[in-house]
């Protein structure tokens, strides 16, 4: 009977599998390790961002700054590696520290000044993109051998697919987030705050600490996504990742998490990401869509997925009777 709470998750997975099957039916070459590997690699940075976004959305908040943080991280790394002799690993640590602290600062403002996350993180979005501009408006290439080495770490599967370290990193991030969200007190407090901040406070949840941590996690993961993105493109560019926040939010929501907070699964987000990636891949395979039809089709597919989910949910809950306490009481 427990599965009723996980229903949205199962529905997302079912939606993904169904859609993938349909794609393969139309373009048989979509069933290849290449496509699978690409789904993982190309969406690695988005996936990692979406994990952070899942934390935030589960707590009833939203973080619009992630796209800018990714851009900032990339530019920062590129500029630092160009102008200094710091090892990339050290630069990674520094930039993760910066983005985590930035997230924490937003969390502090949100909690202590009681301002809506939407607006605080919108200001954060302007700020981070602005700082990226200030560092460099030009796109700065990164050609450190360490980057080359990281990029050379992949497993070439039969069929030509390259499973890269960034894809692995994304999967690990998802696994870690699952553990944290479901098996630690902090994770449960995230759900608690999302259920009702006021009630959570009355139940003794340390709201201040948890909120700050949530946004710190989101900022830190956006920083990590920025590192992945810089690996992906070997460069830092201040205009990178514009609008990523909306993609991440869409992925989280398609993954079955409620924007109102308190309900959802990070595993769902993973499949949300995969669904978004599938839409992109499908459009590339189709290759006949003009620029405008591309946008329209993305919109229509987004809508279709949402409706498919609603439909599946409706069909399944129609059969599951309402929980009955009287039956359970002795």
């Amino acid at each position: 009977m427990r599965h009723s709470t996980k229903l949205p998750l199962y529905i997302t997975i079912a939606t993904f599998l169904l859609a993938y099957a349909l794609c393969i039916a139309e373009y048989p070459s979509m069933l290849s390790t290449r496509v699978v590997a690409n789904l993982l690699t190309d969406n690695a940075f988005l996936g990692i961002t979406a994990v952070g976004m899942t934390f935030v959305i589960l707590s009833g908040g939203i973080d619009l700054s992630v796209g800018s943080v990714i851009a900032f991280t990339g530019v920062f790394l590129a500029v630092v590696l160009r102008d200094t002799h710091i090892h990339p690993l050290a630069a990674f640590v520094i930039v993760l520290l910066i983005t985590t602290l930035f997230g924490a600062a937003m969390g502090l403002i949100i909690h202590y000044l009681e301002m809506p996350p939407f607006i605080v993180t919108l200001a954060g979005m302007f700020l981070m993109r602005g700082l990226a501009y200030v560092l460099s408006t030009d796109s700065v290439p990164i050609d450190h051998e360490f980057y080359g080495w990281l990029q050379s770490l992949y497993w070439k599967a039969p069929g030509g697919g390259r499973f890269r370290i960034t894809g692995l990193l994304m999967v690990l991030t998802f696994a870690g987030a699952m553990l944290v969200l479901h098996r630690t007190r902090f994770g449960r407090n995230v759900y608690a705050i999302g259920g009702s901040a006021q009630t959570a406070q009355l139940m003794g949840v340390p709201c201040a600490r948890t909120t700050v941590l949530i946004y710190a996690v989101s900022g830190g993961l956006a920083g990590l996504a920025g590192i992945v993105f810089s690996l992906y493109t070997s460069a830092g560019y201040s205009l990178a990742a514009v609008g990523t926040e909306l993609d991440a939010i869409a992925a989280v929501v398609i993954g079955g998490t409620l924007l109102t907070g308190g309900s959802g699964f990070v595993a769902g987000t993973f499949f949300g990401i995969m669904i978004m990636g599938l839409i992109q891949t499908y459009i590339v395979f189709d290759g006949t869509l003009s620029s405008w039809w591309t946008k329209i089709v993305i919109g229509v597919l987004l809508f279709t997925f949402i409706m498919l989910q609603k439909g599946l949910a409706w069909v399944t809950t129609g059969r599951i009777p309402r929980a009955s306490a009287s039956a359970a009481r002795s």
Partner: protein
Amino acid sequence: MQTDTRPVLHATGISKFFPGVIALDDVELALYPGEVHALLGENGAGKSTLIKCLTGAYGRDGGTITLDGQEIDPRDPLSSQEAGIGTVYQEVNLLPNLSVAENLFLGRQPRRFGMIDQRRMVRDARGILSEYGLEVDPARLLSSYSIAVQQIVAIARAVELSGKVLILDEPTASLDRDEVQLMFSVIRRLTARGLAVVFITHFLDQVQEICDRATILRNGRVVGTLKLAEASRTDIVTMMLGRQLEEVTRHPDRGVPGEVLLSLRGFGRRGAIEPFDMDLREGEVVGLAGLLGSGRSETCNAVFGADPADRGEARLRGAPLGLSNPRAAIRQRFALCPEDRKTDGIVGELSVRENIILSLQARQGWFRPLPRARIEAIAEHYVKALDIRLASLDTPIRLLSGGNQQKALLARWLATDPALLILDEPTRGIDVGAHAEIIALIERLRADGMALLVASSEMEELVAYSTRIVVLRDRRQVGELAGGEISPAAIVRAIAAEEGAAKEEVLA
């Protein structure tokens, strides 16, 4: 333990101001180990506020609190929790999106290798809840259980957290007798261990049953602390209200019911309430009795179209009628005062005035606003008529005390001049004075020819005003009492008889 004369918790000079209200004025409260201390007062007297000041949910504007002789200054509920004060706040304050077990253990989940040990948590939760006679699946979402179950979970959580003091703010408002007794036995066990318990309720018989002493508040001031063994019920009520209260002992003359207003045939909703037949007459109060989860609320909601029936038919004065949504019902001058006022009733941020005229305005339509003067007149009329205590009509309704919110909701529906008034637990959280007033009001409305359908878990109350009582069990109507048959004992029998019958059926 009673030999220890030092209070566990001693609060002195507690003051709390809200804009326009002095909620607490120099309040003192002393709790001794092993005692159950009642905190009594009318709606809006300041009981809940006092609790919140003690636990740090509100910052207080003055006063000192000592725990075991040490001065403490709880900044938030967490710090008082850590100091050993467990609290059940008024209105269930749990998280519907978490499982029952998690609600019980939030913040102190058992861990293994740093990770939450889910299996153990569920097992422990089952153990704890069984002490309260609750055989629920702790792994399921809290929201899948009724308010009563949630209330018990809240109590269990507070008990687990209370090392020194347990505070219960109207924990019994939605519990029936058996649960209350189980809770009392838990309380007795705790006091035997030397805990101090604060118990807030409007049920004076419960106070007299379990409490040792009582502190009585009126308008934010302490009017006295007394030993309950030495006080009579009338004394307490008089202290609370500042006046005498004539007890409602009078049984209603059950009059002659008028025409059939609404007649339901085979009316029901899958998964909520089995099909039933029912006739509601003008000038008649039909009571709905049953245990928790027996389907009383579902009946009310189906009749009002809030959870519309999916089978059967309804006729209004003989004419077929669709009850597919609340608006359809309201058009026929139906009204429903819901059970859960926080989520189904009040519109928290709106002023009391706006809350009162909301339904009337909704029925008038978007483009025919009620004139300002009329709004003012209606609001003031009902505030006076129902004695709603508030700083001003502009106060957002969420700032009113629970009982006063309930009255304001009643006012909302009375303002629409309903033909059929459905009341789901109308006296939940209402003080003795207002309780009597509401019973009198129901009487008066009935006498004026209104049809009423009232669900309540207080049998005495049902008996006091019902013309007929429909008994429910397991979402099914199982009996009906009318006229002279009506008595608490008869209701209990009706429920139990059916239970016996059901068992026999199973055996057969």
